[in-house]
């Protein structure tokens, strides 16, 4: 039991530090702690203050979380994000996961630029027994996507999962390239792409929010896949993204294997963040 308001302030300062160290960002941390401060009573113990913080964080994420959305046949998923975040691996993981649910996927090697990008997706495709469509090296990705859509329609595969090249959101040409891919998809298939996942590395700091804003503008986004949570990074930068952009976190990546993807669970995420 805390003996004074000063004790309480010390606890709240320590908790602010925990939030900052998890990459939640100073402004968001202050906002959340301020909310907790109004919630707690004089008699509250350290544990109950911590629970109040847990509730505040979970409460922030809950409206944008829900049961996993299993795609209907005919769905097109697009994977976007900055370099090295885990797009290609996450796409393969999801293809494997949907396969277990009885949905087969056609994979598209939309990264026509990086060395061995097509080969990397090809190997994953073989491992999960899913066909991979690729184009020539340095082909216009939108044209590879266009061809893939024709093949998808012809084959009648359940799902179309499209990998794209990593890119920094400050490169206007590359961001326009993504917008073009989205337009091609929308023109060729009604409502496509049905999901546009921003694949984000959990160790990224405040720049994650900038990335989310830009990708939302150019390619559109329907959700986030937060990767590499098997490391020591807490992924707190997504809290700011959810708060500001109202984007749901759909999956988390917890390793390099096909089974290392799980639907996002706010309570578990917050527990890990505060641990």
């Amino acid at each position, binding site marked *: 039991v805390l003996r004074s308001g000063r004790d309480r302030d010390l606890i709240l300062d320590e908790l602010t530090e925990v939030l900052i*160290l998890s990459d939640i960002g100073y402004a968001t941390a202050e906002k959340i702690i301020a909310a907790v401060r109004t919630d707690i009573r004089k008699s509250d113990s350290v544990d109950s203050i911590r629970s109040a913080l847990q509730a505040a964080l979970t409460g922030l994420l809950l409206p944008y979380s829900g049961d996993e959305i299993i795609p209907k046949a005919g769905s097109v998923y697009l994977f976007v994000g900055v370099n090295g*975040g885990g797009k290609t691996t996450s796409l393969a993981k999801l293809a494997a996961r949907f396969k277990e649910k009885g949905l087969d996927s056609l994979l598209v090697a939309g990264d026509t630029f990086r*060395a061995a990008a097509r080969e990397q997706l090809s190997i994953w495709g073989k491992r999960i027994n899913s066909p991979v469509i690729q184009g020539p090296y340095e082909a216009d990705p939108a044209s590879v996507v266009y061809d893939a859509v024709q093949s998808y329609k012809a084959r009648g595969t359940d799902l179309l999962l499209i990998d794209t090249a990593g890119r920094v959101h400050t490169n206007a040409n590359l961001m326009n390239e993504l917008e073009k891919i989205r337009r091609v998809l929308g023109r060729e298939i009604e409502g496509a792409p049905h999901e546009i996942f921003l694949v984000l590395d959990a160790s990224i700091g405040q720049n994650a929010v900038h990335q989310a804003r830009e990708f939302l503008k150019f390619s559109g986004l329907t959700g986030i896949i937060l990767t590499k949570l098997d490391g020591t*990074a807490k992924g707190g930068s997504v809290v700011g993204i959810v708060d500001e952009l109202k984007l749901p976190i759909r999956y988390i990546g917890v390793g390099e294997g096909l089974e290392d993807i799980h639907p996002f669970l706010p309570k578990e995420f917050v527990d890990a963040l505060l641990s």
Partner: protein
Amino acid sequence: QLSDGLQKALKFLRGEGKVTEKNMTEALRMVRLAFLEADVNYTVVKEFEKKIREKALNEKVLESLTPAQQVIKIIRDELTVILGSNDRKLNIGSIPPSKYMLVGLQGSGKTTTCGKLGRLLSQAGGNPLFVSFDLKRPAAQDQLQMIAHNLKLPFYRLSRGQMEKPLKALAEVMEQARIQSQSPLIVDTAGRLHVDQDLMDELLLIKKTLVPDEVIYVGDAMTGQDAVKSALAFDEQIGLTSVILTKLDGDARGGAALSIVSVTGKPIKYVGVGEKYDQLEMFHPDRMASRILG
């Protein structure tokens, strides 16, 4: 050009007229926020703040006509000193071939950076040989091989048998490089988590066999608070000699640079500023300082 947080601190100090211990504390609190916004690790920020405070509360600053300006200058100078180092070229070692090993977390840019280094050193008159000891990532060998091919530089492809006995293979690669005067030998390794003890042990075995002239930590410039944990773990368990920070062509402020150098004491020698193989630049501490402050 200073970040909003620092502009605020400057404006505040100017408004106070005289600098006192009390308003310096308030100004430093604003500086702290600015540094956190730039993704500098919280512990590193506090350490840095202590140093600034000592310097800013001395006679010359307190009596200065422009104390706010003085404080910003102290911050910029201290930042540049920490980031800076005269040790900017890669170690060559005394017995050829020079050997470089690139390590770091998944996706940080190691394989691409191998290519960039090979190109740079080849242009400087070297005769590099690339080899990849990433036996895990799909198409890892293909990736480095394609990069080498694009750069018209030699690549040592491990056979299936060699992949089963990697340390023996490494000795064979080193022997070839020695006999054929291929220097530097640039060794790519698989990305790994510093908390994966088996993989960290494996990395240490590679290092012990290679006896590299540089163990280069390749870190992503957009890393947040975790930059300290991973870099420190790699330094403590493997031993690093230098750092290359990648993806500075984005708009991440790059506070990870200060975090990594502060906790490991190892110099950042180069920065990656794009995906192409010529997009590697020498590290400039003053430019990095401006970026973190901006």
